[in-house]
């Protein structure tokens, strides 16, 4: 194998070496009627809304792996910079790595310019990266923040298209959440009103979509202040048992008893001192 690396200079990044092997493996598994293990998706409801002083982002907390819930309390609102946060839907690893890379790039950029980063910069970086990979990175994001020009909210699709809107929803529960927004959104709301609206939109996604569930996380971003409320609301708390259901000792009657002693002889005895100093 060492000889194969003579001709090309080693480069980092994605390696497509295993693609052919994976295709063959899938064909083999299909013959045995089994399927390849599914990637962990977030099957989500995420949303954001612009209000009078800033932006409110909301997300549910369920991560699914096929038809099974993989994580009952995962965090979908990712940090990008002190004034910018991003909710991620789609493949969990993709959203996590993408937001971390963009967060690092934005930090380097803001150190280079000496200014607080702008939401439009984060948006541009994200869309250029997602377009480069032609949608193979499955990350649908809701990006919101407050910068020198005011509050901004963007939605970014896995193929790299973006929309700048006053209220956005993404994920499998996006239709349920959007229905709530379309009914009750007003421009220039107050903070409590906006938080209640986001909470209700995420709750609609949680109760009407199988891919979303558990708690509601909310992140309120204003100029100079970020309130990360995790959890903001727990509509799916696990119930507590009303009484004790243990059986008393002696409930089952003993009919017969047979005792067999095991005679073990000591062959060797060693003592190993622990280093407790």
């Amino acid at each position, binding site marked *: 194998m060492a*000889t194969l690396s*003579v001709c090309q200079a080693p480069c*980092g990044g994605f390696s497509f070496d295993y693609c052919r092997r994976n295709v063959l493996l899938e064909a083999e598994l299909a013959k045995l009627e089994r399927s390849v293990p599914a990637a962990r998706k977030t099957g989500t409801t995420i949303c954001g809304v612009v209000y009078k002083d800033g932006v409110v982002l909301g997300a549910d907390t369920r991560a699914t792996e096929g038809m099974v819930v993989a994580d009952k309390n995962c965090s979908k609102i990712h940090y990008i910079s002190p004034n910018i946060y991003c909710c991620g839907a789609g493949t969990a690893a993709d959203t996590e790595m993408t937001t971390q890379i963009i967060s690092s790039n934005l930090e380097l950029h803001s150190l280079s310019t000496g200014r607080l980063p702008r939401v439009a910069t984060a948006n541009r970086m994200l869309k250029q990266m997602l377009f480069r990979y032609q949608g193979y990175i499955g990350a649908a994001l809701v990006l919101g923040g407050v910068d020198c020009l005011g509050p901004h909210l963007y939605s970014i699709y896995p193929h790299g298209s973006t929309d700048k809107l006053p209220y956005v929803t993404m994920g499998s529960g996006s239709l349920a959440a959007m229905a709530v927004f379309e009914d009750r959104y007003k421009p220039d709301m107050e903070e409590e009103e906006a938080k209640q609206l986001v909470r209700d939109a995420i709750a609609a996604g949680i109760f009407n979509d199988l891919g979303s569930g558990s708690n509601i996380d909310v992140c309120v971003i204003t100029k100079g202040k970020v309130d990360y409320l995790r959890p903001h609301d727990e509509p799916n708390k696990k119930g507590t048992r009303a009484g004790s259901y243990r059986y008393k000792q002696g409930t089952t009657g003993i009919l017969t008893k047979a005792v067999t002693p095991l005679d073990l002889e000591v062959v060797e005895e060693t003592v190993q001192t622990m280093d407790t100093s």
Partner: protein
Amino acid sequence: MNTRGLRSQLKDSVPVAGLCTQAGSYGVQDPLRKGFSSVKNELLPSHPLELSEKNFHLNQDKMNFSTLRNIQGLHAPLKLQMEYRATRQIQRLPFLQSSNIALDTLRGNDESIGFEDVLNDPAQSEVMGDPHMMMEYKLGLL
């Protein structure tokens, strides 16, 4: 003078159109060095992104230089390319990892992080190319 040395350097700067990177002597790939080859593997990429990723930096550079030529005239990209070529020559021997600081600073890579820094970092790879073979390839003796 043996011109194969120059050829191996030039080949690395030509965009890879197909997947068959080189035909050895006699016009086919040398199975001892490159393993068994199949026509399908050479014609079709194993992933739709493979070709575009292989040529990504070359294409970006081409685009940037042509825009620069249209805006600022011929000399601007010429001078930049001269600087790139100069910094690309500051390298260690081929089997060792070079830091490429000057090249990275010129490109602006010192202020950005991408997947090539996180995944498959060549500085952390477990295998190393055979030093003798890599030197022979570089000098065109192979």
